[in-house]
């Protein structure tokens, strides 16, 4: 089971990192989501992996650490909210600029006339 959990974290992290390095917003957001899944499993595993034990200290021999579960719950809520925010902001940026590149070279001409040369150079 340790191997399974560790490789799941590893695969999710590497896939997430690959996507984060892409050029357009959508894959980057997907990458960030994968990274947050990876970190959630990682946090869960940080209290040691125990199977079939309650997170309550009833007898000292058989229990699982409840704190990482609370931490993961907090982290899931926060990352879910943040992902929703970034989707909305990037949708706004995409619809406004008709372009979902992540870098800011292609600034809209009416906003900044001096970057016309730059945008022509990159297109």
């Amino acid at each position, binding site marked *: 089971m340790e191997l399974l959990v560790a490789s799941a974290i590893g695969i999710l992290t590497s896939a997430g990192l690959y996507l*984060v390095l892409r050029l357009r917003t959508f894959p980057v957001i997907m990458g*960030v989501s994968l990274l947050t899944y990876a970190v959630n499993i990682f*946090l869960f595993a*940080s209290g040691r992996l125990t199977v079939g034990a309650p997170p309550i200290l009833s007898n000292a021999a058989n229990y699982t650490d409840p704190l990482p579960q609370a931490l993961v719950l907090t982290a899931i809520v926060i990352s879910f909210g943040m992902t929703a925010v970034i989707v909305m902001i990037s949708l706004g940026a995409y619809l406004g600029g008709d372009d979902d590149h992540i870098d800011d070279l292609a600034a809209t001409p009416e906003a900044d006339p001096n970057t016309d040369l730059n945008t022509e150079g990159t297109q």
Partner: protein
Amino acid sequence: MTHWIILPIVLPAFLAPFIVLAARYHITIQRVISVFGTLCLVAITAGLSWQASDGTVTLYQLSDWAAPFGIVLVGDRLSTLMVLLTSALAFFVLLYAIGSGWDNRGRHFHALFQFQLMGIMGAFLTGDLFNLFVFFEVLLIASYGLMIHTGGTVRLRAGVQYVLYNLLGSTLFLFALGAIYAETGTLNMADLAGRVQLIDASATVGIRIAAVLLLMVFAVKAAVVPLHFWLPSSYAEAPAPVAALFAIMTKVGAYAIIRVYTLIFPPDLAATAGLHGWWLLPTALVSLAIGMVGILAAKQLDRLAAFAVIGSMGMVMVSISLFTPAGMSAALYYIVHSTLAAGALFLITDLARAGRDNLDLTPQPPVSGAPLTAALFFVAAIAMAGLPPFSGFIGKLLILNAAFDTAYAAWIWAVILIASLISVVGFARAGSVLFWKAQSVEQGENAEPSPAPSGLSYVAVGGLVTLLVGHTVFAGPATQYTTAISEQLFAPERYLSTVLETPGKLSDQTEGAH
């Protein structure tokens, strides 16, 4: 047990929803509540600082749970100084936002502003690493809203970069926290300080990785090169009052580095030896150089101000990375100076927008209200570049003095002095193009003079500049106080004993009943 210490968090947390729910369509009521709340914050945080000034460490146990089991808030000299600085900056920034009308150009400015204050105050006061993460998220999610306040495509694009970069930073923070919890079984800072010391020398791999990850997270927040790429466009595109408030956000990263790397991973800890001097110092010197070169290279005034922030953070980090009492004291003096100066600079950047099409550093007709704006820019530029007579010069002297006896003194002196020269040239160029050459530009035929910025805007900027002057005039008492802070940081026994030995509820009822 006194409850005053939680008020800087609770007060904005109550005011913000009240503003959204009750005063949604009434900008005047929002302004009154917001100013009143921020004034209260100034008073409360001043009281907390006064309480902590004799070395008292104030502890607040949430729900009365004893320290390693419950979340605690801790007010020592360092954190109370930072909350006081935050509320003072926030007050003047708020006045500017009202005076310039920025708060009325989009919705919910005041509510987000209060949430932002809540997050920053919480980050400074908490004594628990996971709680620090939560407050980081509170301040970040409020800052996302503030950053894209009033919208616009360019601002939204900059916002996307800012949010994504910080989401990655938060993920990294969680990885670090998971690693720390797996290695030590606690996330309370005072408890961690004891447990990290106990880790066997042969099994330090996990904790060393955690220490480096944590340093990277805080370096992202503090915009240390090479993790600074989020800063220039987001600070330049953010509304000016928001950018001015963000001047304290990079200091949250610096504060976290100071707190964690003096308390949990002190420089004399064998497991993480070399992390401080070997890695932090060179990156700090590079940040300083890149920031100051960016000032010279910037083509817009708002970019110039953003690079000035990177440069001044580099200066702060150079001083922190010495990890000597003198260096820490100088860093704290410079943190206060650079927060006020950067805040003033961003506000002046917005003043210079009056009557100009854009902030490009090209000769254009003079800005409205040019004489006063130019004078304020002159003061802020002198302060930021670190020329006498303002506090930037004193802070730089303190840092140079602290670095004098160290092994890398030659490098530090050379980089600081050359970088300062470059920044002086950069600021002089910007000022002369904006205000001096503007006098020789012909006005267009049908150009109507645009209205000068309102008086309240000037009051706000003037207030920040007055604080800077006060920081210069009272440099003696200020450095005495920062020296006292760094003494407390390098002798954390009182902090540890207050946090860990104060009785509270325990899960074991027989032991903790009271």
